């Protein structure tokens, strides 16, 4: 009996050890989650009207509310509850928030963004919160105060920052694009110049006024420079050259000039190198150089031209480019040092142009003119060679460029008549026109 009792005590002792570790684990913290086989539903978020503390703050609080709503609705990961379902009274601070009103089946929101705005002649102050209304014990997700000049441009910036904060928190770590910009070419002033605009089409303004032809802008990975193609005289002969715009300095800076036609610059993911297409040796081939343009090294050696390089932003190891060495323009992939060139085979013939790697390095967007139709944007997974068509029967769609969140694409399309800049989600939905004035093309999304 005592023997059994002793054994029982020993068992208890042994059993208590894990107990101690459980307490330890509680302090460390852990959680359990899962991924189901079905589709994940998007969280529903409501953005209540931000309350103006006085009459003079009414315009800016309405502007702030609208921009936040637009940013969240176009994020691709959230479902914005339609404002027509909102309760009549908007909370302006946490104490006024009533969970039951927002989780009501009519509204059915999971998260609510709300706050207030006060304005003086010299300053605007915005208090903004985002609360989880389905968890009464753990509510606050975002709480921010924004202070700045009481101008439209500043309120717009703050709205984008608040939307970025919400998207960052609710997407589980994906970058948000509300504060990003798009560089593009516009001929509305009479000559093709490099322009830039906010990702939603606001604030369009020119960067260059070279009064020559500028093409193919490309942001550097740290967004400090834009490489583009412009026409400059070399030994009194005007030819296409790689030109460099410094965002920090606000002007075009010098870059070496090479013989022949030089265009289509692409940055390496670490921002230290550039690959571009040059006909300095007779045939358009790909060359790699550093950011000062010194000692370009040739990468491709073949008949037929090679152009439109795009560097894998995740690995930095492979480069996809367009070449007509096989007769018609097709996509090829090679290592960053020019070795191991392989063809990216596609099931149909046709011209393949404008390849662009997605930020996670797993997808390739490009423009393809199949024999049956015109140019459409496709996305391909190079490892499995599966392709998805994003634009169907809507004008000529070319030059796709990925947003840093890997969920949006910007491209040029003639579906509205003239060539204009459009954005869409990476599944082809939610296409928005961004430009209307003049002829606009060749967009490139800034990396941050």
């Amino acid at each position, binding site marked *: 009996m005592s023997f059994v009792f002793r054994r029982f005590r020993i068992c208890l002792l042994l059993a208590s050890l894990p107990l101690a570790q459980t307490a330890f684990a509680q302090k460390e913290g852990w*959680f359990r989650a899962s991924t189901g086989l079905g589709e994940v539903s998007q969280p529903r978020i409501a953005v209540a009207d931000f309350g103006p503390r006085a009459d003079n703050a009414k315009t800016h609080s309405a502007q702030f509310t609208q921009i936040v709503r637009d940013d969240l609705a176009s994020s691709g990961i959230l479902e914005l509850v339609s404002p027509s379902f909102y309760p009549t009274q908007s909370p302006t601070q946490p104490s006024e928030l009533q969970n039951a009103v927002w989780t009501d089946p009519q509204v059915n929101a999971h998260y609510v963004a709300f706050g207030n705005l006060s304005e003086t002649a010299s300053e605007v102050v915005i208090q903004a919160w985002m609360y989880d209304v389905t968890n009464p014990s753990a509510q606050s997700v975002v709480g921010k105060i924004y202070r700045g000049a009481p101008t439209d441009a500043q309120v717009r910036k703050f709205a984008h920052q608040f939307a970025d904060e919400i998207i960052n928190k609710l997407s589980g770590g994906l970058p948000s694009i509300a504060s990003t910009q798009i560089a593009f070419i516009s001929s509305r002033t009479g000559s093709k110049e490099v322009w830039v605009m906010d990702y939603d089409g606001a604030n369009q303004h020119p960067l260059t006024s070279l009064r020559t032809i500028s093409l193919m802008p490309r942001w550097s990975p740290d967004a400090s420079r834009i490489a583009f193609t412009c026409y400059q005289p070399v030994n009194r002969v005007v030819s296409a050259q790689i030109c460099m715009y410094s965002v920090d300095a606000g002007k075009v800076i010098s870059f070496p000039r090479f013989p022949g036609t030089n265009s289509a610059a692409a940055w390496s993911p670490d921002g230290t190198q550039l690959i571009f297409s040059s006909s*300095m040796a007779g045939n358009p081939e790909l060359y790699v150089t550093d950011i000062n343009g010194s000692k370009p090294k040739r990468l491709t050696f073949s008949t037929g031209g090679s152009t439109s390089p795009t560097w894998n932003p995740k690995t930095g190891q492979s480069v996809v480019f367009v070449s007509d060495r096989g007769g018609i323009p097709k996509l090829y992939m090679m290592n960053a040092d020019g070795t191991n060139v392989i063809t990216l085979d596609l099931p149909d013939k046709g011209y393949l142009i404008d390849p662009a790697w997605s930020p996670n390095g797993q997808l390739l967007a490009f423009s393809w003119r199949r024999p049956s139709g015109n140019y459409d944007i496709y996305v391909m997974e190079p490892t499995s060679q599966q392709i998805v068509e994003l634009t169907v029967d809507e004008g000529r769609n070319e030059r796709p460029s990925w947003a840093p969140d890997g969920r949006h694409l910007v491209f040029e399309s003639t579906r509205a008549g003239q060539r204009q800049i459009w954005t869409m989600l990476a599944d082809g939905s939610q296409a928005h026109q961004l430009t209307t004035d003049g002829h606009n093309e060749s967009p490139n999304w800034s990396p941050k």
Partner: protein
Amino acid sequence: MSAAIANPTERFTATQGVEASFRKFLIYSIVFHSSLAVLIAASAYFHWDRQQWSGTGSLGDAKHVGLVSSAGLPMLKPPVVTPSEVADPTKSLYKEEPPKLPEPKTEATPIQKFTKEKPLPPSPKSKKFENKTPPPPNAVPGHNGVPDIPAGLQQSPGSSAGGVATHQQAGGEFESRYPWYIAAAKRRVAPNWNLLFLDPAVRNSRTLHCVISFTIMRDGSVKNLRVSETSGNLSWDNSGLRAIQSSIPFAPLPSDWTAPEVSVLWDFPDIENR
């Protein structure tokens, strides 16, 4: 003129006549000369203007040259090809071979990285509590499950649906404080669980289930990623590992969470779907 002055009276009328015609002539002369001077000045001024317009900086030069050669569409004009271009293809063929040598080396490094990233030796911490506190259904002995359930409820090893609830009671301080973080992490991982890469034989399985365990650090990076409970099928386990791998980095931990990390167990698929 001097002749008119010499004989004043007689030639008064004649002088007057001469003077009159001379005056007319003078007036015409003055008008003509002044208009000529104005013309010269104007042309000089105009000429100056043009010089300024064309002489200012390199931009003007470019414009000059641009006017001349834009008609020729410089883009289509091939540059001058020197005879040495012909030699290039042979040179390039020669060049192509040596670069192939480094190839195996570059291919080798990714493999090394992969083995480094595999957490083969579990850290001592994981031995202490990762194996024991969340009771994996594999562990049949009851005492492993008992500490987690204060009320002493016995859970059969298989029903992890109940297990989820008890986890909330037992160690879910993080889970109760930050449900939005967990929901966001689920949204992050879900699209990365790519069933397309599964072995076709098991792609449509409704019974396979694995549990992946890992730790999220403060900055969202992940360590100790491993299969905590195998499904019995390597392809299924690897799909779960790959799903978490593709979701790195996760969002940074909430700023008011004081611990430097949080441990996670992840089921593929949902337990309810079994």
